[in-house]
């Protein structure tokens, strides 16, 4: 590997920023092509029903309407990232069993394609759908045991995934404990609320490929799912990402992709060569894409008076919603992370993902980690209180260290630094490491009758890259141009820049490894016709995976350069160490190949009259291995922390009987600048990951994980109340305070 020269560790500006500040960047909804038609989706807007009949006869007769597509027009009427359990369009007439059922309000029934947007609207109203409503299944805990009422009648149960971990002897571990803490927790749904609603445009390109320009997270997965539904070979589908207006996991599953492809392909078969464009409204976006999973948790943990955690038992039930999306993977993470970054000798975990008629749940920054961390950190903080030990001290006695065995009975990958991260964070927040162990600082601010102050601690770890045996690789192609010296270089890479700055990082790696100025690096990105399989922009994996792929491709290209090949062109597919799935009985597995580590302290005040919580200070310490671009890293920490703050304190997604009561940004409130902490102190540690590119770890998710449990601990310190359910809206806080009296 080349020596670090000049570009890594530098806060260079994002090369896409210039276009973005001048309004010139094109997001999917900004692209117009000559002669384009418009598409609108008819959503079911009811949670559970059988479609008896769809009458489109009036709609298709409206002048200017080009086509109305229903289930019978979809060649293979199914899709899904993990399993093909979702119809592209619900209704009678396709071969997919039970596709005439709608299972959540955002299920799609028809696509209307017309000359103008207002015509699609008009035609939509002329479609007549006859529904037979079915009982709504909305509580995952009930649905788990109810085999009479099924969301998918072709399955035996609403439970579509179950994992278990059996490590050591739980009963023995509980017996050894001096205290046992039992807990029941509920974590809420969260909406991504990326600022750019779903949009895209599709056309047939010069090589007869159905081409879709859209905002997503994984070009090649989009391509594969579209190809499956259209029954075409993947190379007949081309997916291109222009500028992407945020994602956070919310673009990992299909939204407009298959619809657009189907529409353009259908028009072509009708002999009409017209691009098709669509833009979802915010309301369509909120009912149309998945959310963060709610979890229902029962748990008991035991510890000795010396602060040794002896046993942890956890049952997780998660609401998958109507379709699987990435639930099985998200739950894998939660299953691992619900016992925290601690070495616990006796562990029993059972987790269940359950179908309901709610909006599907899936990927969202942290991917099961925040829910797992909430359980583990609240339990550890409660244990610390029960044995009268400092929360940092109890952690120091149990944290995972180099060589520690995880709950899944395999050692951690090398480069474990959670103890250093906890140490740093505690120190920064004023903890003292005395001969009696770690001691929290005294709260400096005075409590009044009304305002109570508190400080809370939590820490977490987050996997980098795909887990549990999922195929994991990343491809880069590099071209070196010039005569005697390399004059410029081209990188071909699919990795999606969802706003986090992935492309900036790619260019920095290239410039560093080739010792070229930034402007001599040209990037061709995210186009399945030109760039190779990169995997998704998720799981905090892009810096790590793409970085390693670029290092490999540059090294290969340099070898060719030395052999006088001009241009020197090389491709490289990086494959990290293998992971393995849970053993069905014991859960034993090698879950991940790399982790990032994080700790947070939250300092806040609670107004006991209004229930309002005000954040004074957040300290966030993240081991990122190597900060390839410190400015971008801090941007991720600040952005994740504010998003976590929304999750912990204010974002209240209301769903009853499968219907959504918060489908707009005026009913679903996310943080504005006046809601955020007065101070976010982000501290970056750089303990190299032994297999990270130039030592880098992934980090985009981890600042999210410990935030909520740190807030809950601080609120407990302020008020004496443990909140086992959030968001901690003023209403929830005040009603608990009144309960306590």
């Amino acid at each position, binding site marked *: 590997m080349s020596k670090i020269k000049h570009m890594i560790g530098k806060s260079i500006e994002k090369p896409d920023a210039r276009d973005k*500040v*001048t309004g*010139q960047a094109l997001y999917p909804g900004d692209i117009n092509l000559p002669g384009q038609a418009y598409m609108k989706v008819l959503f079911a807007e009811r949670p559970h029903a059988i479609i008896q009949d769809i009458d489109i006869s009036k709609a298709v007769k409206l002048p200017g309407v080009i086509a109305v597509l229903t289930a019978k027009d979809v060649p293979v009427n199914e899709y899904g990232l993990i399993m093909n359990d979702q119809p592209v369009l619900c209704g009678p007439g396709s071969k997919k069993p039970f596709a005439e059922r709608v299972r959540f309000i955002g299920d799609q029934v028809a696509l209307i394609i017309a000359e103008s947007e207002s015509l699609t609207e008009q035609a939509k109203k002329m479609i007549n759908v006859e529904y037979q409503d079915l009982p709504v299944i909305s509580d995952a805990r009930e649905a788990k045991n109810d085999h009479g009422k099924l969301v998918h009648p072709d399955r035996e149960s609403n439970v579509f995934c179950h994992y278990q971990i059996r490590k050591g002897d739980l009963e023995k571990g509980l017996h050894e404990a001096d205290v046992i803490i039992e807990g029941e927790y509920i974590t809420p749904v969260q909406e991504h*609320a990326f600022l750019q609603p779903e949009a895209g445009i599709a056309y047939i390109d010069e090589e007869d490929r159905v081409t879709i320009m859209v905002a997503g997270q994984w070009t090649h997965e989009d391509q594969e799912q579209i190809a499956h539904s259209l029954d075409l070979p993947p190379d007949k589908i081309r997916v291109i990402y222009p500028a992407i207006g945020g994602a956070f996991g919310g673009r990992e599953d299909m939204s407009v992709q298959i619809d657009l492809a189907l529409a353009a392909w259908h028009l072509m078969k009708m002999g009409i060569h017209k691009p098709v464009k669509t833009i979802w409204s915010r309301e369509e976006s909120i009912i149309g894409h998945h959310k963060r999973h709610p979890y229902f948790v029962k748990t008991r943990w035991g510890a000795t008076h010396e602060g040794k955690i002896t046993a942890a038992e956890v049952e997780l039930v998660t609401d998958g919603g109507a379709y699987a999306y990435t639930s099985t993977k998200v739950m894998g993470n939660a299953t691992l992370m619900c016992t925290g970054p601690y070495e616990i000798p006796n562990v029993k975990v059972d987790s269940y993902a359950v179908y309901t008629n709610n909006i599907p749940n899936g990927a969202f920054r942290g991917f099961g980690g925040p829910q797992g961390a909430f359980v583990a950190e609240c339990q550890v903080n409660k244990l610390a209180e029960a044995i009268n030990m400092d929360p940092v001290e109890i952690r120091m006695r149990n944290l995972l260290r180099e060589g520690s065995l995880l709950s899944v009975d395999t050692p951690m990958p090398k480069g474990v630094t959670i103890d250093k991260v906890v140490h740093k964070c505690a120190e920064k927040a004023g903890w003292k490491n005395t001969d009696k162990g770690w001691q929290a600082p005294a709260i400096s601010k005075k409590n009044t009758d009304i305002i109570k102050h508190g400080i809370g601690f939590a820490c977490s770890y987050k996997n980098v890259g795909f887990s549990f045996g999922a195929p994991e690789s990343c491809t880069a192609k590099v071209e070196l141009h010039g005569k005697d010296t390399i004059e410029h270089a081209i990188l071909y890479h699919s990795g999606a820049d969802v706003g*986090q700055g992935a492309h900036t990082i790619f260019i920095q790696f290239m410039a560093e490894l080739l010792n070229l100025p930034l402007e001599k690096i040209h990037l061709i990105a995210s186009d399945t016709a030109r760039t190779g399989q990169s995997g998704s922009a998720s799981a905090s994996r892009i810096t790590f995976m793409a970085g390693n792929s670029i290092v490999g491709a540059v090294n290969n290209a340099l070898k060719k350069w030395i052999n006088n090949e001009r241009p020197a062109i090389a491709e490289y597919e990086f494959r990290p160490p293998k992971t393995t799935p849970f053993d069905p009985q014991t859960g034993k597995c090698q879950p991940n190949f790399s982790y990032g580590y994080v700790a947070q302290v939250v300092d806040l005040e609670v107004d006991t009259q209004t229930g309002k919580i005000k954040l004074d200070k957040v300290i966030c310490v993240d081991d990122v291995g190597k900060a390839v671009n410190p400015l971008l890293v801090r941007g991720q920490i600040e*952005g994740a922390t504010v998003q976590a703050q929304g999750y912990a304190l204010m974002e209240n997604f209301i769903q009853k009987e499968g219907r959504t009561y918060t489908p707009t940004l005026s009913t679903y409130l996310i943080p504005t*600048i006046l809601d*955020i902490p007065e101070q976010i102190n982000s501290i970056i540690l750089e303990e190299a990951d032994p297999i990270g590119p130039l030592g880098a770890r992934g980090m985009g998710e981890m600042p999210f994980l410990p935030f909520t449990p740190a807030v809950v601990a601080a609120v407990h310190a302020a008020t004496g109340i443990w909140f086992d359910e959030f968001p901690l809206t003023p209403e929830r806080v005040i009603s608990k305070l009144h309960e306590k009296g």
Partner: protein
Amino acid sequence: MNTPINIKVKVNGKEYKRAVEPRLLLSDFLRHDLELTGTHVGCEHGMCGACTVIMDGVSVRSCLIFAVQADGHEIETADGLGTEDALHPLQQAFMEEHALQCGFCTPGFLMTIIPFLRENPNPTDEEIRTAIDGNLCRCTGYENIVKAVKKASVKMAGKAK
């Protein structure tokens, strides 16, 4: 009811004459009819601020205004603020301070801040925070936006001297 109405609007210094439907929103007029896609739409009902433009010197939400209401008025959008080679100091500061990630919210922030800085060329952090409290950003956590505004104000004040 849908008879098109003739309007005359000056956008970024250029005059446009168009016939528009009475219910056409200013945001759609700018984006579709004039193909000025630097104005973004994030919520369609006044909550996110992404669609903010300047009308006769004042920040307005173009998703809450009909195109016909802009008849005879002057509009400024992010597309006209600076060019790629000659950025406005505020745009420059947004780049330098990493005040954007996905950038979808950025034009709305710029168009909110420009009139604010004209009125208040030397703002405190507190005043900046209040000025942008109606604009949503889901990526940055806002801190860098405040820094960028501060930096731009210092630069612009220096130039004005």
